[in-house]
């Protein structure tokens, strides 16, 4: 269903509405008169230039001196000129993300580097096959609406395809019914695609309900009983990360983890053989699934990162030579 609406539909309408409001609102304010601040058009991809030019000619009509002056008294104008930098950033950001998402949907080839952890996953599944022992996969302990869980499920699809083609047993304990449904669907699909639907059974993905630590205790028991050769943790993990990784370590399994929870990453790094950190998890799932939303978002964010790096480097150079106060004030947020 996600492909039902395209950017040309309701989204453009929404952007136009936004643009219109920001174009009309400040016009009613007496302060906005002179104009000089223009958004750099050269960095703008062509698709939404219309919207942008509409914005840059009407709403962003504040001189640079306005931005730098002390906080403009809020009562004077309806539009808060001290927040113009946020507006520019937001519009630029939106355009970049939307354009990349559109390109991703059109099937344009967008390059993402291979995440090295994914090779490790393949190797680890291979090892489990050699040893004739199962692979354990946990897609985190959060609901399906958490993007980390979604990323975990999409990596599960890939792992399931490997285990299906090697005929290696797979165990996937989950904590929520919704995750159960999604996981079963993905795994079944993988077994069909790998041409081994007979090996699929519904117990591969199993529901282990309960409180956080009750879930962990059950999974730990599973590890000690079934002695999986490979444990893969991909998704949102919290305090249980350490318990899982330690038990897996004690059971002698190869372990690969991925999470965006910064507080849990150190434990995975210390106790697992390979760890996907933070955004690497999303990148891995985008790489595998080629889901336009993930891919477009990732590429858009990459573009922004380069822009930010350039802005920072310019700032550092200016600061090192002792000038550039006007430049720093462009980034003032308070």
């Amino acid at each position, binding site marked *: 269903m996600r492909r039902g*609406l395209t950017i040309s539909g309701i989204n453009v309408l929404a952007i136009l509405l936004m643009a219109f409001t920001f174009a009309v609102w400040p016009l009613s304010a007496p302060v906005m008169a002179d104009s000089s601040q223009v958004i750099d058009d050269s960095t703008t991809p062509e698709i939404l230039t219309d919207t942008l030019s509409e914005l840059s000619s009407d709403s962003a009509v504040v001189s640079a001196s306005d931005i730098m002056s002390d906080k403009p008294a809020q*009562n004077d104008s309806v*539009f*808060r000129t001290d927040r113009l930098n946020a507006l520019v950033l937001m519009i630029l950001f939106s355009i970049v993300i*939307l354009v990349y998402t559109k390109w991703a949907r059109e099937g344009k080839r967008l390059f993402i580097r291979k995440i090295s952890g994914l090779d490790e996953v393949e190797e680890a599944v291979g090892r489990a096959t050699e040893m004739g022992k199962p692979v354990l996969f946990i897609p985190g302990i959060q609901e399906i609406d958490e993007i980390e869980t979604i990323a975990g499920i999409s990596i599960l699809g890939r792992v399931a395809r490997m285990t299906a083609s090697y005929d290696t047993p797979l165990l996937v304990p989950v904590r929520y019914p*919704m995750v159960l449904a999604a996981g079963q669907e993905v795994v079944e699909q993988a077994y069909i695609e790998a041409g081994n639907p007979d090996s699929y059974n519904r117990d591969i993905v199993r529901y282990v309900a309960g409180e956080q630590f009750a879930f962990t205790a059950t999974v730990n028991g599973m590890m000690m009983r079934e002695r999986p050769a490979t444990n893969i943790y991909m998704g949102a993990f919290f305090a249980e990360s*350490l318990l899982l990784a330690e038990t897996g370590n004690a059971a002698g399994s190869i372990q690969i983890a991925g999470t965006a929870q910064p507080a849990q990453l150190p434990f995975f790094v*210390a106790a697992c053989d390979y760890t996907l950190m933070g955004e690497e998890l999303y990148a891995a799932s985008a790489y595998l699934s080629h889901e336009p939303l993930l891919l477009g978002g990732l590429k858009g964010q990459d573009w922004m990162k380069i822009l930010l790096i350039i802005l920072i480097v310019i700032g550092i150079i200016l600061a090192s030579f002792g000038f550039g106060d006007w430049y720093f004030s462009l980034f003032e947020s308070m």
Partner: protein
Amino acid sequence: MKTTVPIIIAFLSGFVMILAFFVSPESVTFGNFELEPEVLSWVTIVGGFTLLLGVVSIVRVNYNAVKRRNDGWVYKLATLISVFAMAIPAVIPNGLSPLFGTGPGSIYDWLFNYLDAPMMSTMFAMLAFYIASAAFRAFRTRNTEATLLLVTAVLVMLWRIPMGEIMLKSIHESIPGLINTYIMNGANMAVQRGIIIGAALGAAAMSLRIMLGIERTYMGK
């Protein structure tokens, strides 16, 4: 209808916030009705109901387990009884008796302070044991990265305790200060900043997609 209306609602409700960010509060006040805080208070009200959804789920799951006499149904029954023991006295107005309601001295308050809170603290206190045994068994200097991590961890653990601080100082007076400046406020700070910026971009992208109705995972799509 089933998807378009929610998308329009999501857009408008987000758009109000963006609008309110850029304009002065007076320009979005209509008599008694201040647009921004009013919409936000609506959100907090709806958010409150969301919490109740979880309670209904718990009751349903446990009730079914008890009805079917599943494994360990006695425990589920204990959960059910606890839910009602906490909830029923709380919703009765405390005008009838100080035992009702949620104020000091009520059953609700007592159950929280003497059962729920200590148990919740204990659940997390157990992690101390796990972390110690994990440190002992799992943390190995298997490569450069893990070594770097462990060395920093040991330094920080020493630096954060009075005994360790004395030890570090006995090696050289300035070591605790150096850890604070170059590890915590230097390397650690810089990495956290990089992560914060990356995560902020990710969250903003997600928000944009939700507002524009491109991202519909939350609708179960």
